[in-house]
Every structure is written in structure tokens, then in C-alpha cells.
């Protein structure tokens, strides 16, 4: 299960992947519930890698703007993830792509 601080940081990332949840609290709650169900059923190895990745991305984001990721504006976060797409460490790029996929799956697999 995500701690509160990890949840806040993750949602700051998820809002960039799916802009709709940045503007709609009810949608964001429904999305995060679905995401948690996906996340909790992953094998231990994958879920700890995802937790670690969120922490690493938050630290990198901090050094990019000298501001916590959740305090950065949407525009600042968009710029940061544009940079991440071309980050010199391939594992970080691939990891972010994996997180993107899980986030998208969790959002678009919600039943109406």
C-alpha cells in the first residue's frame, strides 16, 4: 500500500500522464482506487521497483526546479517529464514508460 507522501508524489506524476484527473477530484479518487487494486496485485518485485522509481523521479524533479514535485506547476512538471524522456540513464526512461503504461491502464480500464 502507498504511504500518503508516496501517493501525493505519484499523483503529481499521474496528472501529467492523464490531464483529466488534474481537473476533476472525483475522477482522481476513482482512478487512484483502480490504480491501487492493480498495484496491490503486482508481484512484490515489480511493486517495490515502482515505489523506488516514484521516489527517484521525485528526487530528480526536485533537483530540476528545487521544489517538491507536488508543489510544481503543471507546466513545470510537463517540462521535467519531457527531459526524463531523454534522460541519459536508459533504465529511468524505460521505468517511466512502464509507470506511464500502468497509469494509463488503471485509468482507461475503469468501468463507466
Amino acid at each position, binding site marked *: 500500500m502507498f504511504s500518503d507522501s508516496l501517493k501525493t508524489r505519484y499523483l503529481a506524476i499521474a496528472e*501529467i*500522464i*492523464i*490531464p*483529466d484527473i488534474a481537473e476533476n477530484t472525483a475522477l482522481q479518487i476513482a482512478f487512484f482506487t*483502480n490504480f491501487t*487494486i*492493480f498495484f496491490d*496485485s*503486482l*508481484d512484490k518485485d*515489480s511493486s517495490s521497483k515502482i515505489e523506488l522509481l516514484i521516489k527517484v523521479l521525485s528526487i530528480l524533479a526536485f533537483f530540476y526546479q528545487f521544489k517538491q514535485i507536488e508543489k510544481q506547476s503543471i507546466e513545470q512538471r*510537463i517540462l521535467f*517529464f519531457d527531459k526524463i*524522456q531523454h534522460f541519459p540513464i*536508459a*533504465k529511468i*526512461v*524505460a*521505468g517511466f*514508460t*512502464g509507470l*506511464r*503504461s500502468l*497509469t*494509463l*491502464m*488503471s*485509468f*482507461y*480500464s*475503469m*468501468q463507466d
Partner: protein
Amino acid sequence: MTFMQNQYDIIIIGSGVGGGTVADELRQYVKKGLKVLILEGGAYRKKEHFNQNERDMSSIFFNKGAFFSKNMHIGLAAAKTVGGSSAVYTGVSFRPPASVVQKWKTEFGLDFLTDEFVENTFLDIEKKINVHELPDSFINDNNRLFKQAAEKLGITVKNLKINIKNCQQQGFCNLGCTVGAKQGTLEVQLPDAINDGVELIYNAWVESIGENTVKFDIREAPEMSEPNVEKEGSYEIGAKVIVLAGGVMQTPALVQRSEHKLKLKNKLVGRYVTLHPVFNLNAVYQKTITNYEGFPKAYYIDEFSDGEGYYLETSFYYPGITSKNIPGYGKIHSEIMKKYDQMMSILILSHDPSEYHNRILIDKKGQAVLDYAIHPEVKKSLIKAIRKAATIFFSAGCTEMIVPGSQKYLLTKMDSDRLYSLITNSKLIFEQTPLSSAHPQGGMRMHKDAASGVVDTNGKIWGTSSVYVADASVFPSSTKVNPYETIMLLATHISRQIMKTHFQSLIS
């Protein structure tokens, strides 16, 4: 650890395409006293347990359908359930191309693949599981538009053959069929085998094997599946013959976990894996189209197979899978996803060579790890295939699309005459747009020489006297087409060889 009293003649590990075919072939001898047990690591989900919900049904798959290579360039989907991946496959039915059969005979010594054996076996298989071309009433807009557009471009489009019966045309197949229309092992071979006395234990994960012993754990039955019949716990059981049919990821891993007990030292175990790498592309058509009806796949193009190294097939997937198949994220991605009802979809299947360094190994916990690098020629093929698919989309009347390898994120009709310069090798970055695979093959290569393969041409692991493999892992190289029929062909041969070698007295 409980030692099971029952001793079996044959234990089959895995109930998918390979394992189910072996069980079906052996069931005639059960009446004559042969004792056969299937151990399946996945749960027993019947048609009433499938609900077409992407989140719920993702648990049918190993690691939720995303088993990634170490470099994360490709994600593999394989099912862990009774019926194996046949419970989630689309049922696209191909015989292997004649050139592949020829290569397997001449380069690997699979001489049993005579024209007569191949033809007769396929006729039997295709009759039993109802392989046929789809009637016009099953053709939805995505398929119709694909065919019209490709033909307008002068490309020959062929009809796929599918193995379904009483299909209710729900438009999707890959989360299990709610009406049991798919004629995979879950619906056909396994019920027949169980009826004739083959035993099945599900949620039974095999940890290791010896020459005549199997160690396994019966785990808790997950929600939305049949309850366990046997008690949960660790067991050991004996058998005269063991048949491994856990699939390409799991069979080599199980053998590596068991190397000590089997006294095996073959460095080719797990090697020469091919994945038939896939991109699924989507584009937005000018108006709403009906894809939730009919059958998702009806047509294919093989015209570019020999020269450029790929097939194109029609396809259509659920929203969650589609969203991850469309590259990128953010506002434009969201806008495109809002037009899901207007989407067309094409699957690119590229042919990959079998290479020594591409392999399944195990980590410290004994779990399968995929080490796989995309061949540079495959990357070139993919670029050609993306350009071709994008051309077909525009020719069909699509207005916009996001595809891998493009310099411009959103391609619109105005870009249709400069696809060649926009979609390039240097822009195809697998960390950003990973491939997927549902057709892994190899890893336990069949070869007539002990020094060049892992199993002999009867399917027996070189260096053992009674451990066989009968799944996609025995393929010496890629079939280049959707592989389930070829797996059934080889599994049929291997079952017959097992009977001839070990239970001759039961063959009348």
C-alpha cells in the same frame, strides 16, 4: 511436504496448447490403464468466471500481462490459467510456412515432419477445433476498412482462419471468452481428456523436477475461479514420464531450477528464444465505427514477409491496452483516447532471428528472467512496417494517429505524403515505445544432435531418460506466423513418441 500415494505413468506440467494437446492424445490409453495427471500452476477459470473487465481479468496473466525483458524493450504476455494462453488467444490459426518446415528438417534434423504427417495432423487438428474462415457477417468496420484501403494501394489482403464455434461477436477475445466460443484447450482438449479419466490439479505450481519426481505447491484458489479440490500445501509425487509444457518463459526456468536433480549441464537451456515482436498501431477514423461487434481479426497481409520481414494483421483491443499501445501521454494522448470509438487498429508482427544471446534464465529466487535484445534488422523492418501501416490508415480515411518512431508526435492527413521522412530508425527508441510479444518460441531447442539442442527429435531432454518437453519452447527457430497450430503439431508427435518408447504394450 506430503508424499502423494498415487504414482502416475505420465505427469504433464502445464495445461496450455502443448500440455492440452498431449493430454488429448494420451486419453485413449487411459481407458487401457495409463495413469495421467496434469499439474497446472494457474487457477481453473471457466467461461462463467470471465467478465471482460480489464482490471479483474489481468490476473489471468503472469505478472498482469507485463513480463518485461531485462532492458524493458519488450513485454511478454502469457496466461497462467487452466488452458494456458489458449484461454486468452484470439484463435488466429496458421500452419507454419513450408519454408520453415523445410528449414527445421534440413538444419535441425526434424525429419519426422514429412508432408504426410504434417498434412494429416493438421487436418485432424483443424477439424477438431473448427478452424475456418469467417463469414461476412463477422466482418466489422476496422476489418472492412483495412481490406479496402490496402487493396486500393495494390496490396493483397488474405483471410485469416479462426477456431471458434457459436461466437457471439463481442468484438474482444483476449480476456477469456464468456461464452466459450474459442476452441482452445480450455474448451476442447481438456474437457475431453478429463472425461476420459485424465486427472487435473490446478493452482499446482511445480517448483522442481527430478528424473521421476515432481515437487509442487498447491496454492490458494484466487477469486473468480473454481475452488481447490486438493488441500493447499507442498507435495512430492512420482511418475514414469514427465512432460514439461509450461511455455517458453516457464519451461526453461523450471529446468534450470531442476538442473541439479536432473544432473543436467546443457548451456543451451533457455537459449535461442524468439519473440515475434509486435507493435499495435491505432489511428482515428473520420467517424464512429463499429469494432465492438463482429470478430476482432479477419485479415492479414504477408506480402512483405520475405522481403521486409513482417506480417500485418487486423486487431482491436480494450481501452486500457489501447491507451498503453499509443505512444506518449498528456493532453494530445487524452484527446486521441477520447476518440476510441473511431479507432482503427493494425498489428505489426516482425520476424526475429533465433540468437544464442536471447534467453530465459533464472534469478536468485529461481524465477524466470528474459534477456532479449532487438536485432538491428528487426528494428529496420519495424520502421518499414510502421510506415506501411500508417499509409494504410490514411488510405482508409483516418485523420490522425500517434505512432512509434515518428519525429512528429501527432500525424495528420497533411503528413501522409512524408511518412518516409517522418518515421525513422533513429526516432524509434524502445525505452519510450516498448514492443510486446504474445508468441514466444524456443528456449528448449529441438535438434537431432545433443551438442546443438536441448531436446531430441522425440521431445526428450538430451541427457535424461524420461523427461520430455511439448510446448512452444522446443521450436528450433521462429515459425514467423501465429504459432498455436505448430505447437499442436509438435506436441502430437511427441505424445506418440512417448507412447512408443515407454508404453508400447498399450498401443494396440
